[in-house]
């Protein structure tokens, strides 16, 4: 294998694949990135056995070939090379080292044979559909914060992606929850997705996927097999991930339909006030009290050590006075995803789930469990 490639091109591609590689690996080859030079292109792959990313970039390939090299070391070297540098990678078949040359620098990196690199096949696709990258981005951004990190509830450790009907319109829905808050976001159902089974895409895949979207792709093709999902981008990148093998809970049942105490607030004013008042709430509980009465909402927090805070805001609220406690961080996470100017809270009482959404748009719905305050 012998090729020459622009430093910035290699850096960007390596940046994507190397983040899949775990820092500590018991299986040596998983620390490596696979480099395949062929037809004026270089394909870089990395995997942790649950997730694989392949990215193809243009390179001046003089001799075809393939090898695997330590991902983090390679990334570190490329990162430190000067901007605009040309990088030459070469390896003679059978040699246990790859040579990297750039300017007056020369590195010899230990290699492992490409035959040992695990191939995370996508499996046979049963459903394939294409989605605008911006829509996939919406689905991810507005739900990702609610993904549970609790290992014992592994089936909540991802985004549940499935076809549904919303007010008679077919939609593609993303749902994430950790039991304290839930996010449900939908976009128009793409062609070919109607029959798709509900799948849970793991957190790590979601995080890596989000980075690939940032590269300005227009469309993403999603292929589902029995146990895996593959996202293919126009610019030659693919991400393949195992799906979480579990049953996502019946989330519809926990989204209240009949909450009749309606509060509407200016999103920015409300978020800023919550942020200020939460400076007082304790590190552990993050509790903030929200009291509503005829046109006024009062936010307050107090802690034995930090003192107390109160802030009053105008709002639209006509129901009976209500006092309800929330985790201020959860509240801010949700407010950060509400797009328009006004947010709408639908509440029942201080102990039941509250539904939050944008006043003008019902495509994203958030449910927040109150706290005892």
């Amino acid at each position, binding site marked *: 294998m012998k090729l020459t490639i622009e430093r910035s091109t290699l850096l960007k591609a390596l940046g994507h694949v190397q983040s899949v590689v775990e820092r500590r690996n018991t299986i040596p080859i998983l620390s490596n990135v696979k480099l395949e030079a062929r037809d004026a292109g270089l394909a870089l792959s990395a995997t942790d056995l649950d997730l694989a990313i392949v990215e193809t970039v243009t390179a001046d390939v003089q001799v075809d070939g393939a090898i695997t090299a330590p991902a983090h070391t390679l990334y570190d070297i490329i990162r430190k090379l000067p901007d605009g540098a040309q990088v030459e990678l070469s390896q003679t078949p059978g040699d246990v080292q790859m040579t990297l040359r750039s300017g007056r620098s020369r590195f010899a990196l230990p290699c492992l044979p490409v035959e040992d690199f695990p191939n995370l096949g996508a499996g046979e696709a049963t459903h394939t559909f294409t989605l605008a990258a911006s829509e996939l981005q919406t689905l991810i951004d507005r739900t990702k914060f609610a993904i*549970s*990190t*609790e*290992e*014992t509830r592994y089936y909540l450790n991802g985004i549940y992606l499935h076809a549904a009907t919303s007010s008679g319109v077919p939609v593609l829905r993303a749902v994430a*929850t*950790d*039991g*304290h*808050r*839930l996010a449900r976001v939908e976009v128009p159902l793409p062609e070919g997705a109607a029959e798709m089974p509900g799948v849970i895409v793991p957190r790590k895949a979601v995080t890596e996927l989000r980075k690939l979207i940032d590269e300005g792709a227009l469309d993403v093709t999603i292929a589902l097999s029995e146990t895996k999902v593959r996202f293919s981008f126009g610019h030659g990148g693919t991400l393949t991930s195992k799906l979480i093998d579990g049953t996502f*809970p019946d989330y519809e049942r*926990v989204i209240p339909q009949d909450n009749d105490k309606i509060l509407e607030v200016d999103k920015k004013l409300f978020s800023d006030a919550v942020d200020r008042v939460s400076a007082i709430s304790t590190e*552990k*509980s993050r*509790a903030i009290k929200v009291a509503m009465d005829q046109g006024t909402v009062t936010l307050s927090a107090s802690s034995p050590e930090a003192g107390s805070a109160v802030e009053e805001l105008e709002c639209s609220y006509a129901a009976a006075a209500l006092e309800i406690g929330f*985790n201020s961080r959860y509240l801010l996470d949700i407010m950060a995803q509400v797009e328009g100017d006004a947010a709408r809270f639908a509440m029942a009482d201080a*102990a039941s*789930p509250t539904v939050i959404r944008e006043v003008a748009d019902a495509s994203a719905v958030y*449910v927040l*469990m*109150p*706290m*005892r305050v």
Partner: protein
Amino acid sequence: MGTGAQPQTVLSQTVLPQAGGVQAALCRECLTAWQGGDTGEETGGETRCPACGSRRVLAHPELRSLAIAHVDCDSFYASIEKRDNPALKEKPLLIGGTGPRSVVSTACYLARKYGCRSAMPMYKARELCPQAVILPPDHGKYRRVSAEIHHIFEQYTDLIQPVALDEAYLDLAHRDDIPEVLANIALRVEQEVGISVSIGLSYCKFLAKMASDLNKPRGFSIVGRSEAVAFLAPQPVRAIHGVGPALERKLIEQGFPTVADLQAASPLDLKARFGSMGRHLWHLAHGEDDRPVNTDREAKSISAETTYDVDQSDPEALLATLQALAERVETRLKRADLSASVVQIKLKTPDFRLLTRQARLPDPTQRARQLMRHAEPLLRREATGRAFRLVGLGVDGLGPSQAADPPDLFSL
């Protein structure tokens, strides 16, 4: 009550060898104070109180400039049982269970003459002293007695740090009659509670604790600033606060069997070898310990454990034990009105290797069920058919109970 202790041989007071000179002295019996009590060198150990003639005399150049005391009850559990049953007075007494794996909680001083020690396996103690009387511990009673003793402390200072039921640190810096207070505490505990204590007086907690151990029972030992380094030098490293068996082994391997070896080393060398503990060791070896007497009584962790009579390897049986322990921890969390955010399991192998595994809880909890949700996977990972002699469950990251168990959308 205390009368039984009176005819006992008066024990010599530990007064460390001093360069001569005038020193403050105090009689522990009649609390007469005077100047010029000597160390006993010239009079062959016969320093007597000029007022009552007692030989229980405290004499030390720094007697009036030391303020941190460690008060340690002498064979606490055994002394209480002997107090309550005079027939046991002259008999060797062991407090502890009698199962095959029980250990001695406390051995009275008579039993210690046969080599019995606390934390020794009970079967071994019985081999050493077959005639010993064995009583199961009565923790409720010991707690009540401990409270009575604390009540006495409280009449002299608010700065009390209980370490266990039978020991506490006292900070007396605000008083100008410190030796009198301590001598008085010792007398009052004997008279009012009916057991004896040993007292260590120094300028820091670490040396006060070492001092209280120097001359048990009914001891009162003093370690002053000027003698701290010399006093520490010949001690084995395990005498230092925080040096357990593992660190002791490491220290000996690297050529530091005694505190003198640590004193001779540079702080940088110790830091390089033992990390932040190294610096700590250097300071302690030089008698520098600035930990305050901490009156904060809040528990830092709560735990419960069970030792099996026969090693247990069945994962389901281990799990059942863990469940019972989780329930005990739940009861104690609720009683203390606390929540926990970390759960830890502890396993001891038949060759006494200790394994601990912990998990951070997604939300603070008070419930055994939540503790088990996270403890069970930890146990299952270790309980793969191998045997354990002990299993324990503890919680950490304690906080207020209001934060515990936030309601869940899918209410588990």
